[in-house]
Each structure stands twice: as C-alpha cells, then as structure tokens.
C-alpha cells in the first residue's frame, strides 16, 4: 500500500527521521510505538505526504485516497453536518453522494441526530469521533492516526478503539502512533518501535509482545510495563 525507503526528515538542526524504511501492506494495522520525540508523528506525517523528506515515498494507486486523524481534533465552528460537507468537498466527493455519505459516517461513529449541532459544542470524545467520521466519509484506503485516544477519557477511548477495530475488520489499512502499549497489543497486527528517529524493531504484534522485540525495544517494553 505504501513504501518509504531511506526516508530522512530534518527540522532545522534536528534530524527527526534518519534513513527510515518501512512498507505497509494492504489491510495491515501497524502501530508505531516509542518514547516521546522518537519520530512517530514525524513518520506518520511523512507517510501522509505532509512533510518534505529525502528518500522515496511510493504509494499504491488506491492509497491516493488517504486521510489522517490527529491527537487533538480540529473541528470548524460549523455544524456537525457542515464539518462533514467540508471534508467531502475537500476530498473531491461528488455532491450527489454527500447526504448518503454523511448519514453513513454519522451512523458509523454513533453521532446520528447531532447533524445540526455546533461541532464545537460536542464533548472531546464526540469531536474525535466526528474527526474519524470526517476521515472515514471519503472512504480512504489508508488511514493514519496520530495518538487518536491520547486526550480522551476511558469510555471515549473504548469507543474509538471499537471504531478502529471495525475499520480494520473491513479491510482498511491503518497506521497509528500510540503511547498506549495495551492499545497497540489489542488493535495492531504489527508493531514498529522507533527511537531517535530510527526503527529498532518491526514485528508482528504477538512476537513483539512475546519477547521477540529485543534490544532497545525490549528495554522500552520493560520500562513501560513496570
């Protein structure tokens, strides 16, 4: 679906990514884990095409339809419906499909009946679900998620996790950064460990958490699990 080869990203004097190579196949759910400042968000943004990088970024044709959900959702001071209309307009979805897509997206994230409510009046969890609906409404083949539950309470976190599990079950390709190792274990099919802008482990989830991580990743796991 997407292949990054020898990708480096620099912000001024800071080398945020150092020659990272990673490929994500169709239908995979990849969790990016690692300490703060390890380069998880930078890698996500680089994969999403939001950063200038050195190296190669190759996409499968269907991966051109991609979206990203951020840790702190930004919703416009518009109604829920108009936030979705905006996403559909920017996503190039034909106007004739908007109503059907909006209804389906709101049903998917359980926000039916709130179409006319100001988006900024929603709770934090609801705003994140709206952001997910906004991303899902354009039917992305590839969805990036940057710590999507980091600022949510446990109940909202559970709702979002259930949504993401549903997307994965539908065959969507997902790449998510997270600090929550339990979440990575519950949701991901593969875990990538980053530190200092480089990948130190890239393993199937069971192997990663089953003692196969080794080296720095294993040390991180021990620290996190303690």
């Amino acid at each position, binding site marked *: 679906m997407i292949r990054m080869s020898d990708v480096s990203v620099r912000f001024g004097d800071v080398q945020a990514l150092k020659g990272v190579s990673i490929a994500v196949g169709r239908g995979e759910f990849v969790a990016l884990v690692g300490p703060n400042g390890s380069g998880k968000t930078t890698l996500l943004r680089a994969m999403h095409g939001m950063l200038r990088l050195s190296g190669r970024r190759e996409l499968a044709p269907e991966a051109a339809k991609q979206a990203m959900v*951020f840790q702190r959702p930004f919703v*416009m001071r518009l109604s829920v419906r108009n936030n979705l209309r905006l996403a559909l307009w*920017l996503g*190039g979805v034909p106007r004739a499909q908007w109503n059907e897509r909006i209804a389906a997206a709101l049903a998917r994230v359980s926000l039916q009946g709130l179409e006319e409510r*100001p988006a900024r009046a929603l709770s934090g969890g609801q705003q994140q679900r709206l952001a997910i609906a*906004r991303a899902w409404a354009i039917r992305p083949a590839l969805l990036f998620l940057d710590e999507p539950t980091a600022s949510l309470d446990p109940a909202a976190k559970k709702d979002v996790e259930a949504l993401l599990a549903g997307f994965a079950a539908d065959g969507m390709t997902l790449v998510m950064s997270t600090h929550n190792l339990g979440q990575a274990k519950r949701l991901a099919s593969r875990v990538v460990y980053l530190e200092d802008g480089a990948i130190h482990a890239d393993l199937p989830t069971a192997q990663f958490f089953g003692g196969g991580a080794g080296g720095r990743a294993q040390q991180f796991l021990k620290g996190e699990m303690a």
Partner: protein
Amino acid sequence: MSAFAESVRTAVDLIVHADAVLFHTVALSLHVSGTACLVAAGFGLAFGAWLSVARFPGHRVLVWGLNTLLALPSVVVGLIVYLLLSRSGPLGSWGILFTPTAMVIAQTILVLPVIAALTRQLVGDSLRDGGDQLRSMGARPMACALLMLVHDRWAVLTILIAAFGRAVAEVGAVMIVGGNIDGVTRVMTTSIALETSKGDLPLAMALGIVLLAVVGVVNLFLGLAQRGHGSALAGVR
C-alpha cells in the same frame, strides 16, 4: 448648568427633535465609514489571509510595514489622497475631490492596514491550531486561510467593528479631502471640529455624544448577533 450637562441636554434635544441637519450628517458619516469598511474588508481580509500563508523573500519586511501602517496618521492619508485627487494630481481628472467618494477612498486607505494586519494575526494563530488538519483533508494553503476566516467569523466581525470605529472617529482625512462642505461632505467629526473652532463647545460636545451613541447602537446590534451565536452554543452544551 455645567458645560457637560448642557452638552448632554443639547444632544438629547438634537435627537428628540429629529434635527434634519444632524440626521443628514449622521447618515453621511455612516455611509462614508461603512462603505470604506466594506471596501477595505474586501481587500484587507483577502490580503491578510494571503499574508498568513504566503512565504517569499521580503515577507517579514512586508508584515513589518503593514504593522507599522497601523499607526498611519489620518491627516497623512488625507494629504496623500488630496495630492492624488487635486486638479494637478495624477488622478485630478476624476474630479472627485471634496466629494463623499474622496472621503471613502481616504478612509479605505486608513482602515485597510488595520483589517489586513489583524486578519493576518488571527488567521495565522488559527492555522497553527488546525492548519495541518485542513491540509490533511486536501485544502491548499490559501483555501486553509480562507476557511479560517469562516471558522473565526465572529473574531473577523470584531476586527471590522474596530476598523469601523477607526474610520467613523477620524477627522483629519475627511476634513482634507472632503472640505467639510455643509450638506455635502460634512460628517460628525468635521462638525465637531467646526463647532469647537467656533467656540460652541457644548454643541461640539453634544455632537460627540451623538456620534458615540450612533456607534454604540451599531455595535450593540453586532454584539447581539455575536451573543446570539454564543447562546446557541451554550444551549447545547
């Protein structure tokens, strides 16, 4: 009776007795300053939004220059417009000096930097908050900036209120390019200046009170619109 009390009584008399000259002067003030703000908003909002996303050599110098123009003296604007529109000036053939049109041009130039500079700051701050997410959805930089004007429309309204306040309260530019001609280019501020120079301080003060009252009523309506929006939000929390 103190001068101030006499001023208040005169102001009330002028309003209650629907003084025709006063109403014409107030209407011209609102027309000139309102039109200037609308024209300046058309250019200033777009220019400010563009400046918030544009990156080019000299960008910082342009922003510095724009911010400096916030302190542009109205008499200097009046003088520049006068020189442009006077018979020997490059735009003298238009024949609009000492007309309300010339006053609109002068006030437009006066408030344009206010609208553009404040818009640049407003949109820039909002883009730091949500610009990446709009770009992620496929919006190009200028589209992101324009969407932020929609997002921050109540703050934009506040900018326009500030610009209107600057326009309607200035006297230097309209005096120079309008000439303070009775019934033609006389507005509230030039009337106040005239009455002050004639020594009729209570009347000058009364006109000032009327000016403040008129602007207060305009702001009241705009404020009610903003508050209505806020209540709508609060009601669904």
